[in-house]
């Protein structure tokens, strides 16, 4: 089966990407300074420092450290948080459900709105929806999330008193963070969908579909859209990972107990194992989702299976 080999090859690529990511993460954590000096009291004796170094394996050459790191990573051990004293991976998974809820909501509305408005705007360039969409996309792409988040709090929490300004626990807590988080991504989905659709609509096969007298909805949805979806799916998958793992600003503003806030805290405390865990986990998620989108491409465009 050709699909099987396709999948296997992609799997090998995924493993290579992850190994390189781990190498980069480890190398950068070395640049950030000696973690031992942060873990011990100021004025600790040289003997204590050396003992801790040895215990953490920091006295070994870099390559040996990398192998050790990889070995532990494969068994799901990315070290212990310096600040919390808990397993870094455990902390990540504790925070994952909250982040998935927030990112899932933001992702859903940003994809539905982005693709919907993008397709409509491309079908009738210059129509009202196209112009409104262009303005909203411009605002979404250029307004900093922290500022937009604060504006929402000012308006809905302080002024109207409709929604709680921060925290989690009910759907009302979810509304503002999901809007703030999805705004930028909705704009990026909209712009890419629109430009990819405009290109697809100029193709010969769309021309022939129109020459066949197909109704316009069929021309757009069946003939033009699948070709435009391929770049959009790629972008959306990466955006989803960013929303889950890198909603640092939004989760901090709204005190949302997710991974973004964990990362923010870890960076403030220089809690290197936690930073490594978050970066590696989100990297793995990107690699896995890329694998999934590769399979999705094949479902959308049968040519890709044969191009292998």
């Amino acid at each position, binding site marked *: 089966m050709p699909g099987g080999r396709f999948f296997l090859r992609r799997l090998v690529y995924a493993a290579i990407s992850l190994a390189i990511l781990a190498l980069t993460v480890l190398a950068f954590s070395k640049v950030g300074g000696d973690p031992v000096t942060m873990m011990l009291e100021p004025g600790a004796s040289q003997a204590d420092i050396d003992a801790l170094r040895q215990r953490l394996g920091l006295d070994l050459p870099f390559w040996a450290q990398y192998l050790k790191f990889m070995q532990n990573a494969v068994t799901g051990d990315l070290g212990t948080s310096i600040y919390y004293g808990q397993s870094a991976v455990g902390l990540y998974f504790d925070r994952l459900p909250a982040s998935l809820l927030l990112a899932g909501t933001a992702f859903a509305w940003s994809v539905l709105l982005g693709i919907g408005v993008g397709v409509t705007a491309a079908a009738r360039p210059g129509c009202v929806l196209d112009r409104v969409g262009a303005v909203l996309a411009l605002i979404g792409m250029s307004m900093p999330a922290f500022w937009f988040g604060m504006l929402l709090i000012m308006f809905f929490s302080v002024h109207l008193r409709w929604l709680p300004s921060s925290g989690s626990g009910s759907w009302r807590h979810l509304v503002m963070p999901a809007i703030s988080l999805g705004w930028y991504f909705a704009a990026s989905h909209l712009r890419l969908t629109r430009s990819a659709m405009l290109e697809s609509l100029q193709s010969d*096969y769309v*021309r022939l*579909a129109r*020459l066949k*007298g197909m109704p316009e909805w069929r021309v757009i949805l069946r003939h033009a859209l699948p*070709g435009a979806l391929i770049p959009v799916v790629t972008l959306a998958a990466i955006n989803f990972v960013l929303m889950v793992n890198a909603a640092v600003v939004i989760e901090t503003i709204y005190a949302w107990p997710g991974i973004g806030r964990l990362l923010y805290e870890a960076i403030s405390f220089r809690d290197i194992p936690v930073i490594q865990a978050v970066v590696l986990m989100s990297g793995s998620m990107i690699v896995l989702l890329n694998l999934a989108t590769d399979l999705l491409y094949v479902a959308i465009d*049968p*040519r890709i299976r044969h191009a292998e």
Partner: protein
Amino acid sequence: MTAPLLEIEDLAVDATGSAGTVRILDGVSIGLGEGETLGVVGESGSGKSTLAAAIPRLLGPGLAISAGRMRLAGEDVMAMTPARLRRMRGAEVATILQDPLHSLTPWLRIGTQVAEPAVVHDRLSWKAAQARALDLLRGVWIPEPERRLRSYPHEMSGGMRQRVAGAVALSCAPRLLIADEPTTALDPTIQLQYLDLLKSLQREHGFALILITHDLGVVARTCQRVGVMYGGRFVEIGTTAEVMERPRHPYTRGLIASMPRLRSAGSRSDRLAIIPGQPPVPGQMPPGCRFHPRCAQRFEPCDRDSPPAFDLGSDRRVACWLERAFGT
């Protein structure tokens, strides 16, 4: 003479862009009876593909019909509503495009693409339309048609895909088929086969055919009548035999002289004649007759006044001042 299926009078198409408005087609008139075949010949930029797009009224962005009348079986095409136009396209006027590699939708199965006009225009169920699609694929000489229904375009060769395009076009039994350079992208041996297929389909289904090409040899094989286009106008139109054997317009004569043909060894001229100069670019049309800068026989009125189409009888028209000077 058969009843006119398509009548076009003084059709003009303008392109509007940032640089202003440019006339692409000017004063184009043709008449075509049921089941007739008209070849339209011209260099690239002569307006022949614009004409192919103007008849189903599906011109590209920035192009619009600015003048003229067009009737299909007596019905005013210019007055058709969007819904009527959609029905006309596909059900009455079908088109085959030049590039078979890009004119089929990559993610739809051949069966779907051949069947969908019957579903949309003839309101068949998908099942019945698939059965019709199977017959159509058989009709265009596609081997293993049952298997091909489930294939995707990229799984077929260019010649095969162009035959599929033929099946798509015939799906609702159109009265007029416009084939815009249908063989240009095909291998030479496949080209002849495809022209034979078109002719045999025409005998079987009885549609009228407008065959657009830059190749006079294709016209000679296929068409009863031929129109020669230059600079967005017809310069000469008549039966293929008349035009090929007794061309009257200097441009037509140049085209025929530049056709490669087999000659016996040692024949006196084995070099191809060429027409000097370049074809005109829309927007920079020379005044008067558009061919005069390249014409060896130009004389006093040619760079000043545009020649009208002189009617030489028996459906022969030539737009050249020589006709007034020496003609009938």
